[in-house]
């Protein structure tokens, strides 16, 4: 069964600048605390259908997999999916708000039975992923503020 999580915050920049920044996978290791690297980008980095390899570090282990851009509407929305052992969909929605942007990050993920032994699971795993998404949003606020 898929688990969903959503967090949002205000960013002092335009929706266009915010979505342009999160849509570039090369920026992601800078604001996602546990994401070490994005490599092997196949295609134009921000385009729909572009895929890449990701490397996450947690608990002394390196988790690797592939990601793929699902949709990109400049200034409005960007979403990508991670394929393989763990399926997750990240969606960033931007709305103009008080001269800046309200950015909402939604995360939907499912840990298949065969990957549960390799990953932090249950409440602990959920808390780790939610904390990661919250910190990523805080870091985006810091990086993108004007």
């Amino acid at each position: 069964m898929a688990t969903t999580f959503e967090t949002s915050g205000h960013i002092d920049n335009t929706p266009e600048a915010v979505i342009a920044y999160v849509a570039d996978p090369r920026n992601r290791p800078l604001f996602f605390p546990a994401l070490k690297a994005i490599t092997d980008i196949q295609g134009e980095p921000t385009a729909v259908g572009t895929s890449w390899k990701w490397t996450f570090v947690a608990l002394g282990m390196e988790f690797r997999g592939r990601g793929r851009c699902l949709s990109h509407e400049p200034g409005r929305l960007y979403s990508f999916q991670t394929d393989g052992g763990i399926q997750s969909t990240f969606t960033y929605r931007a709305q103009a708000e008080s001269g800046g942007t309200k950015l909402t990050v939604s995360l939907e993920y499912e840990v298949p039975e065969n990957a549960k032994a390799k990953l932090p699971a249950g409440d602990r795993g959920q808390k780790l992923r939610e904390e990661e998404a919250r910190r990523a949003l805080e870091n985006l606020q810091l990086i993108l503020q004007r």
Partner: protein
Amino acid sequence: MFPQLLWASFAIAAAAYLLLFLMRVNVSLRLVRLGWLAEAALVSRGLALTLWSLASWEWTPLVACVVVAAATFYWHRTWLVRARADEFCERISEACRGLRLECRYQPGGLALVERQQMLLLGITRLHTRLLLVRVPSPPPRSKVALLVQWLAKQYSGPVPPIPIDLSRPS
């Protein structure tokens, strides 16, 4: 026999750590971690004092551990990095661009400017692929702190992590 075993095991652990560092590239050795190892050796020997009194030969490793622990505490923001200086600086400049952080070369390293405050990331080339890096102490919620976190991920410790490929079925 116990004291010999204890000192030997800590010496082997430190040697293995150093060897791994020298064998791999794009890794860092944080001097403070060698200090923790030295402190662990001192504490272990201290706890064992009730069972085995200190032999005269043990003063050598004991003093060595005290010196290492004190020195590495003093240099706790100093890393040894196995990377080429030009590649290392180029990667940092790229990360600074991504973080929208002003960064410029200056003698002794890279100047990082945030909110009119300048912090220096000290870089000294010791050998072709060996750098001495002095990491600044930034405020916790700052772009420089994000750069230091990114640096720690890119140049992690010398012990190889366990790789788990989630794109392959188990």
